[in-house]
């Protein structure tokens, strides 16, 4: 059946309205202020391109590709943590046990938590806080409803979203009514700049999340549509070939949305997207800082994830990473006799003064600098291997 003539309806009702509605009444109806509503959890979804990742990458991708429901995604996370916890002799059946184990784990310094375990503990803690004190801080969501298909995309508060799901489906007798308070932004008022400001104004954004955020802003000012589907790192890497300098009119807005950082700092963040996929994921999961990661970029991509793993295992500082990377570069150039290497020259000068120091003094200084006996030993072994190789080459000549 053809759709009735809606225009005639509107004309009649509009004319009656003009006659009968006072100006004040019309103004009240037009009130377009941002509103806070309790929304059904099922109608709220995290944004797949949100720079800040809450769930591990594999679960994140599967969830956004509709392969997992929110409950299934959380169940996967819990299973990962259960396996890790069992391996560390801390098995648990109920996620609330994670909170009772917390003090013991903190007392036992050797019992380091995996990022997933830390994440789940934080979510459970947040869920219990919501259960006991209520959701004091509403999420910020964008209304992307089309027709009768209601949907709200999360701008900020994804952790609270997951904690509320956890409360609803995994914490018995939680009293959750399956809704969550949200500040609803009308779809037309949403923008990547708004989202960036909301993100950067809160603490806890990792360097990799900042890199993704920088990429989203650059892509946006170059007119690239931000997709509604999950994307891989290559999507963000498109920003590497784009420059803020060509869009000077947006520079201030972009830097302000990034939390008021400088151009140089912005470039440093964006450049992190040069890291390999594996290195990016590791660095994001472990929240490594930009100052540490920037040196990893000097390495070939196949070595980057290994270096990131070393940084995580030994808690290396930026300076230590820089030195290791420089050493790696020396190793790479040692066969290159055409170019005089400044690092080789520095080493030769050091060799000339080696008898001015005792081994004990070297060990003491090395331990003081590296703060880790394993790392100090690794340094010495690397140096021995390096010198043996040099000696071998000398013999050949």
């Amino acid at each position, binding site marked *: *059946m053809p759709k*009735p003539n809606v225009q005639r309806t509107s004309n009649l009702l509009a004319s009656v309205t003009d006659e009968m509605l006072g100006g004040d009444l*019309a103004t009240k109806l037009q009130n*377009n202020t941002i509103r806070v509503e309790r929304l*059904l959890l099922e109608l709220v979804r995290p944004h797949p391109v949100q720079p800040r990742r809450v769930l591990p990458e594999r679960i994140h991708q599967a969830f956004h590709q509709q392969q997992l429901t929110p409950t299934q995604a959380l169940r996967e996370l819990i299973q990962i943590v259960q396996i890790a916890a069992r391996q560390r002799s801390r098995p648990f059946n109920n996620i609330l046990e994670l909170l009772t184990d917390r003090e013991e784990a903190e007392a036992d310094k050797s019992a380091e938590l995996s990022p997933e375990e830390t994440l789940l503990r934080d979510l459970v803690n947040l869920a219990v806080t919501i259960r006991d004190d209520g959701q004091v801080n509403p999420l910020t969501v964008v209304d992307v409803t089309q027709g009768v298909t*209601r949907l709200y995309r999360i701008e900020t508060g994804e952790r609270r979203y997951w904690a509320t799901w956890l409360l609803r489906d995994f914490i018995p007798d939680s009293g959750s009514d399956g809704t969550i308070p949200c500040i609803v932004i009308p779809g037309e008022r949403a923008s990547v700049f708004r989202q960036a400001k909301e993100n950067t104004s809160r603490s806890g954004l990792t360097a990799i999340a900042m890199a993704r955020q920088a990429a989203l802003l650059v892509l946006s000012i170059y007119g690239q549509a931000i997709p509604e589907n999950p994307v891989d790192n290559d999507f963000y890497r498109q920003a590497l070939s784009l420059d803020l300098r060509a869009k000077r009119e947006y520079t201030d807005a972009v830097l302000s949305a990034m939390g008021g950082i400088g151009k140089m700092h912005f470039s440093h963040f964006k450049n992190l997207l040069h890291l390999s996929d594996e290195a990016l994921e590791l660095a994001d999961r472990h929240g490594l800082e930009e100052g540490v990661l920037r040196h990893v970029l000097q390495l070939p991509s196949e070595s980057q994830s290994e270096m990131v793993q070393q940084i995580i295992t030994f808690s290396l500082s930026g300076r230590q990473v820089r030195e290791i990377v420089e050493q790696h570069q020396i190793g790479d150039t040692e066969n290159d006799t055409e170019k005089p290497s400044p690092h080789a020259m520095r080493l030769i000068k050091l060799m000339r003064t080696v008898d001015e120091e005792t081994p004990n003094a070297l060990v003491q200084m090395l331990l003081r600098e590296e703060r880790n006996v394993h790392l100090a030993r690794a340094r010495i072994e690397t140096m021995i291997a390096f010198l043996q190789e040099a000696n071998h080459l000398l013999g050949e000549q």
Partner: protein
Amino acid sequence: MTHVFVFTNHKGGVGKSTSATNIALGLSSVLKSTGAANARVLLIDTDSQAHATLVTTSRKDYGSQDSLYTVLMAERQSAAKVMNDCIVQSQWDDNLHILPASSMLEGAERELIGVAGAPYRISDPLSKIMSHYAAVVIDTRPSFSLLTEMALIAATDAIIPVEPRYLETVGLLSVITKINDIRDGWRIPDLKVSGIVITKMDSRIKGHTQLLEDLKSHPVLGKLICGVIPANEAVSYAHNNHQSVFSYDPKASASKAYAELVVTLIRRMVQG
């Protein structure tokens, strides 16, 4: 707060579905034309005859998977999501959304007898999704059955359509008494009888004019009269064509009377 208008009367043929459908469209259209931030209106059809569903969606074949029946039979925890998923867009206007009725609703009452919390099976899920709507309009069946009780528990404003005849006017008092019983019995303080709509008014009939005058002069009922809809063949023809009376014949006296009623209800919505 979203106002939930329920059109109810245990007498059939008094214009409940006609009023509910046209008022729902009218609310949505007026809100839209005034530039309101939210002009969405939800119409819930609780009558198993599904007349309101038929005229607004041109369909009557909703069943166990996509109607109010589905919501009533859903698990408590998932009922709100099910309700949201069953809502369809009206053929009349994009902002008018319909939760369709099904002939299966007849059996739903039997299935729900003795089920704990049954009377709240509309109000509970509705409370979780109604903030999306500027107003909700509920059409009820011509009886005080469990479904009508559910509709009243979910409502904030009960509006009683009534024909200007002696026996109907006598019945009006029993409707008001029943609504008050539900408000007190189920402790629904938000529910109030907020209007009487006189339908099928024919000013040429002396009895109609006399009864209307009597009602208007009544100290309580007189204040409740919020609209007088003249008897008008445009209403019947609009139904036949699955159209609202506004779009079928905007110049008809019934169209203008419904439009005035819409404005009255919007004033109440804004003024709280």
